[in-house]
């Protein structure tokens, strides 16, 4: 007896960290066919590459000979530091893959034949993901580097961001025209933020700048006004890319990664959103496009209601506002992932509250454990085709001038 014709055993019976991205994402091709995604212009406004794979290459871009020596000594002498030197990688992040249940979060350890450098390997992995998900353009961010906003030594954080930004713009962007990026700002140092914009704003592929993960600096501080003015004048969006931290005062009570992740990403951006709106930054810089990234959507209608409710009673606390806080929030932009789709009615109300057809931009967040495929947007039952086209790419085309 033999197996029948028409039976093909999958070469990969179990997907692991060594499985090719194209095989991991093979089922996304069904969505391409089902929803005709090849006919859409799809921009993924939040995805990630694996910069720690290229860490020794990135550290070569450090300006300071002293810091570069520190990095070299760490890599040489500390057994586990060859790809972590100077970094503030929080140990809790290694819980993200749910104990190996979601392998692509832990590592994309697949083969990339012919890739002679970390940058080439990175670009290869990014291309595989884009092609598998029918994505036309992908805005690519680092991963643990986004934690630099929480680095205990702000000077080191600034130096690492500068090195990374130089590496990314010289090694990644020139290799793949479908890749774009918003570069991280050394937010603890407002002057260094200005220097970052000056140095990189005109580089092809740089389409904005990011405030990453940090939640301890008030975004309304006077020291940041020149930065916002500069970005507004250049027509470059500012993005707030949320990040988790299990050591926040609130999340430090939490005993499960689920709890800390669910709360921490959101409260990070809730904090900034509150200061941003109540201090009237949208009134001061009406042309500055603001994007809230990787914190999902469910928190937005909550904040709209909460801030409006308080504003009506305490208008004198927010004297720069001429409209309710929700008005300003509705004029900002949001990336879609992780789109909390557990209840159709609640999600529909959320999308209506934020004016999703004009404010929402698709993001995959690949290769993170809670990534969303484009079919997630295409399958929404309560949006028309025009709205879906906007969310999947047309709004991003407008916001970033693509």
């Amino acid at each position, binding site marked *: 007896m033999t197996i029948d014709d028409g*039976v093909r055993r999958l070469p990969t019976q*179990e997907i692991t960290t060594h499985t090719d991205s194209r095989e991991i994402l093979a089922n996304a091709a069904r969505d391409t066919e089902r929803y005709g995604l090849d006919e859409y212009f799809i921009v993924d406004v939040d995805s990630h590459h694996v910069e720690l794979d290229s860490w020794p290459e990135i550290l070569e871009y450090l300006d300071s000979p002293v810091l570069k020596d520190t990095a070299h000594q760490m890599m040489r002498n500390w057994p586990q530091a060859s790809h972590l030197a100077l970094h503030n990688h929080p140990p809790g992040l290694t819980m993200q893959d749910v104990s190996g249940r979601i392998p692509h979060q832990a590592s994309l350890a697949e083969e990339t034949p012919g890739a002679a450098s970390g940058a080439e390997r990175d670009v290869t992995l990014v291309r595989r993901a884009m092609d598998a998900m029918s994505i036309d353009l992908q805005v690519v961010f680092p991963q643990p580097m986004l934690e630099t906003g929480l680095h205990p030594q702000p000077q080191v954080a600034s130096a690492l961001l500068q090195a990374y930004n130089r590496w990314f713009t010289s090694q990644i962007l020139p290799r793949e025209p479908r890749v774009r990026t918003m570069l991280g700002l050394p937010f603890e140092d407002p002057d260094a933020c200005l220097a970052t914009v000056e140095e990189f704003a005109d580089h092809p592929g740089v389409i904005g700048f990011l405030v990453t993960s940090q939640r301890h600096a008030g975004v309304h501080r006077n020291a940041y006004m020149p930065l916002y003015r500069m970005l507004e004048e250049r027509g470059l969006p500012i993005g707030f890319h949320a990040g988790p931290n299990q050591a926040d005062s609130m999340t430090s009570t939490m005993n499960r990664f689920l709890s800390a992740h669910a709360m921490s990403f959101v409260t990070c951006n809730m904090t900034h959103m509150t200061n941003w709106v109540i201090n009237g930054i949208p009134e001061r810089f009406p042309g500055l496009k603001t994007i809230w990234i990787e914190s999902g959507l469910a928190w937005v209608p909550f904040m709209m209601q909460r801030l409006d409710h308080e504003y009506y009673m305490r208008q004198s606390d927010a004297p720069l506002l001429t409209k309710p806080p929700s008005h300003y929030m509705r004029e900002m932009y949001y990336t879609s992932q992780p789109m909390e789709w*557990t209840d159709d009615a609640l999600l529909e109300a959320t999308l209506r509250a934020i004016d999703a057809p004009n404010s929402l931009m698709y993001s995959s967040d690949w290769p993170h454990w809670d990534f969303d495929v484009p079919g997630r947007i295409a399958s929404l039952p309560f949006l028309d085709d025009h709205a879906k086209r906007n969310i999947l790419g047309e709004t991003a085309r407008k916001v970033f001038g693509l």
Partner: protein
Amino acid sequence: MTTTLDGSAPPRRTYDVGASDEIAERGRLVVTLGEGADAVTVGVFRFRGRLHAYENRCAHQGGPACQGRIVSRVRERLDDAQRSLGLAFEDDSMHIVCPWHGFEYDVTTGRHPGRPDYALRPVTVGEEGGRIRVSV
């Protein structure tokens, strides 16, 4: 969120996919049956001696649920005073985990343990004369 557990479309063809001893206890075999647009990928699993088969398509976002980790259900043990004694595997259980996002399914029901309407589409599977046959 959608489920593909709709019971529609009666099976059109039965395939011999291999010998019974090729799927050990707590093991699996993932096969694509048919060609072109009609092809269906199915995971066949053995637990407590019985075979269970599901389409390789997660109810969440369509991920390859049958190609993920096979793991026992995690339980939290409590003492008589309802104090936590920590986490433990429930040895007499078998979950298949979608590698895209971690959705877990009880292999005997194909359903998510906390939200049973999230379910894999079951596929008819049988054993006869030491051979495994799947109907799609």
